[in-house]
């Protein structure tokens, strides 16, 4: 029995963290954030060189053959360092093709995804779903349909669409299909940018009208649910990283900022607020590890744990983010202050793939309550 990381897993985090800190200091992050592009070619190339673009791709297809736990560990580092890019969405696309594609599809797409030459993403949520669900990521509400090698439907909140060469699209029965946008099919694949809250992770609407598409033959409602669950754990890990960074920023600021002749950290109200922020977040590291591990091993409660982890860690991270703003005083409320970068990262993690409220109801349902 070992509830903890292997040396390789710790090394993976250290290596990635070292790279991100060295290659992508806060100043570069700020530039990407202000530009609103959400993609940095040099950074992506670096991730590819470290093998992170192929993290969950089997070794047979040129990837590292690692699992959702390693993906979550990398998401934590991405959240903590605040780096932009499609790491999570890209990896979920890899997982989808690996799990649901036929051998020729895997052979066709996975190597390019593994090297990072092709960026993958997912188009799942639909606006104005006819069914009365409040969760646009619930496959039961999807209306997108395939016909004769084409797909038609209307998606929103699609991340990183501008740079993606491969889009995994969710279908009405919970199945999946792959669309490879190209300039030639501008009429059948229409992209409408949305003004997203996290400028390092831009989102778009995607209108598909008879776009060329290849269904993934092994995709079912259950397999799609598993991809979504991996996404939930990845988002929670990202939010965990963001929250730890916000706590550290707050502690550093409180030690540095002086009022009434002493660091504000000396005031019990400030010290206790930071301690409470930490206490809401730090213990959830184990919840995250367990949730990822449960998905990797296909444990019976894996889906419910994914929902618990997403609901809890992202909700608490947004609470921590608000506390961090308040602790930074007026400065925390400004665009210039770095707090907003992680604040908005936490906001994205909270809302993407379903809010905490949606997943708490799911937790209750899955428990048979």
């Amino acid at each position: 029995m070992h509830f903890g990381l292997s040396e390789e897993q710790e090394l993976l985090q250290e290596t990635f963290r070292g790279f991100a800190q060295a290659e992508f200091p806060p100043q570069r992050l700020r530039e990407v954030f202000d530009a609103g592009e959400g993609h940095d070619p040099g950074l992506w190339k670096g991730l590819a060189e470290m093998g992170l673009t192929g993290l969950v791709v089997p070794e047979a297809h040129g990837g590292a053959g690692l699992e959702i736990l390693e993906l979550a560990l990398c998401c934590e580092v991405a959240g903590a360092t605040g780096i932009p890019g499609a790491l999570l969405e890209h990896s979920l696309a890899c997982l989808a093709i690996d799990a649901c594609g036929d051998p020729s599809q895997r052979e066709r797409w996975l190597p390019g995804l593994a090297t990072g030459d092709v960026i993958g993403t997912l188009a799942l949520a639909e606006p104005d779903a006819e069914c009365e669900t409040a969760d646009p990521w619930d496959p039961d509400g999807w209306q997108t349909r395939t016909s004769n090698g084409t797909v038609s439907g209307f998606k929103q909140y699609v991340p990183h669409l501008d740079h993606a060469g491969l889009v995994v699209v969710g279908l009405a029965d919970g199945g999946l299909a792959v669309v490879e946008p190209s300039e030639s099919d501008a009429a059948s694949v229409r992209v409408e940018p949305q003004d997203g809250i996290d400028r390092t992770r831009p989102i778009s609407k995607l209108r598909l009208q008879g776009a060329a598409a290849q269904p993934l033959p092994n995709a079912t409602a259950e397999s799609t649910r598993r991809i979504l669950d991996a996404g939930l754990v990845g988002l929670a890990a990202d939010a965990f990283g963001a929250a730890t960074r916000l706590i550290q920023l707050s502690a550093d600021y409180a030690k540095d900022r002086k009022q009434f002749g002493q660091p504000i950290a000396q005031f019990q109200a400030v010290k206790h607020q930071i301690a409470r922020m930490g206490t809401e977040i730090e213990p959830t590291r184990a919840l995250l590890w367990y949730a990822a591990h449960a998905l990797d091993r296909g444990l019976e409660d894996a889906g419910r744990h994914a929902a618990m982890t997403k609901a809890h860690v992202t909700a608490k991270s947004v609470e921590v983010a608000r506390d961090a703003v308040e602790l930074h005083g007026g400065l925390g409320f400004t665009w210039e202050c770095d707090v907003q970068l992680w604040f908005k990262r936490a906001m994205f993690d909270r809302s993407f793939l379903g809010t905490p409220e949606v997943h708490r109801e799911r937790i209750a349902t899955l428990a048979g309550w």
Partner: protein
Amino acid sequence: MDLQYNQEEEQFRAEVRAFLAGWPLRGEEASLPIAEQETLFRSQAIERGYVYRDIPREYGGGGQEPDVLKDHIVRAEFGRAGAPGSSFLQGPAMLAPTLMEFGSEAQRRRFVPPTLREEIRWCQGYSEPGSGSDLASLQCSAALEGDDESGEWVINGQKIWTSNAQNSHWLFGLFRTETDAPKHKGISYLLVPLDQPGVEVRPLKQMTGGLDFNEVFFDDARTGADCIVGERGQGWQVSRATLKHERNLIANPNLMRDHFDAVVDLARTTLRNGRPAILDPGIRQRLSEIECYVRTNETSNLRQLSAAARGEELKCMLPMMMNKLYSTDTMQRLMEIAYELVGADGLLAPSEADLAGYAKGEGPTGWVEQWMFSLGPAIAGGATNIQLNIIGERGYGLPRDQRPTR
């Protein structure tokens, strides 16, 4: 308890309503630009004594005896009619009362009338980057060159969080003039013209994307020796009077009621588990609890107003100290629900329209903006921890914090 207004007050209300029948303007006047229409109507309202009621006529005010209840009636009726009454701008709302209390006769005559007419627009220069909750540690300096009458103050340093500085002509604020005095006693209250080479105003973008605040930099900026309000070193006491007005603005109960009603409407039109969220028992519990806070805030404000009208403020010192904390906490609770109800649209950034002015959230991104912005008041005008210190120390007689220097 008598919530009926008496005959004189009802008579007054009827007069105000009759006057307000003239708003919006009609005929030729209705084709003027809206700002001119407002100025025109407000000047008529001043003439009738409804607006800037307490300020004497010779200074451009309404010239009426102080009467808290009549003030309240005017505010309520002007609000109902959407008519331009007493401005919430910092000049009329904060500086003018301060000058009436502490200014020299010359200062009142020079500044109050054009301030009320909004021909001089003001911003407030209190906070500095290094001086937030510990405002008295401010370092922005003013040194007198020449004598008390014909000399000039030479100003160096920086102010921050100055709302509307980009649209203002003058700044009122606190500056360190007595370098050897203890920190609270070295501060003076000065009036400084902004249109001069030594002053630079830079907008300060908020994390919501809005541009409500500025930084103001002074580099050998100058103002007349006669532009000091009160004596040298008395700026701290003068500013306390101004801050009092600001706190009252923050605790406006009508604004909170409007927001509450809007969130209830949001809950009616948002689905949760396949039904309107307003039918969700959990949402109902929370909205009911929040309405109790809202209603407490309303009735407590009415009580304080009534006490003030009878000169009995001492009877409600405790709830007065608590107004700001109570209302900011309540707004945050309310906005948490709004942000939840917005659901997946919490992925969207506030739009330009959401960021313009103090608009209520309309559409999901408006609520996201409101939710983010609801943090602001907890920070501005004295942070929560400062409020708690005040309540603990002055309200319950608890000892002051241990501090290394005093």
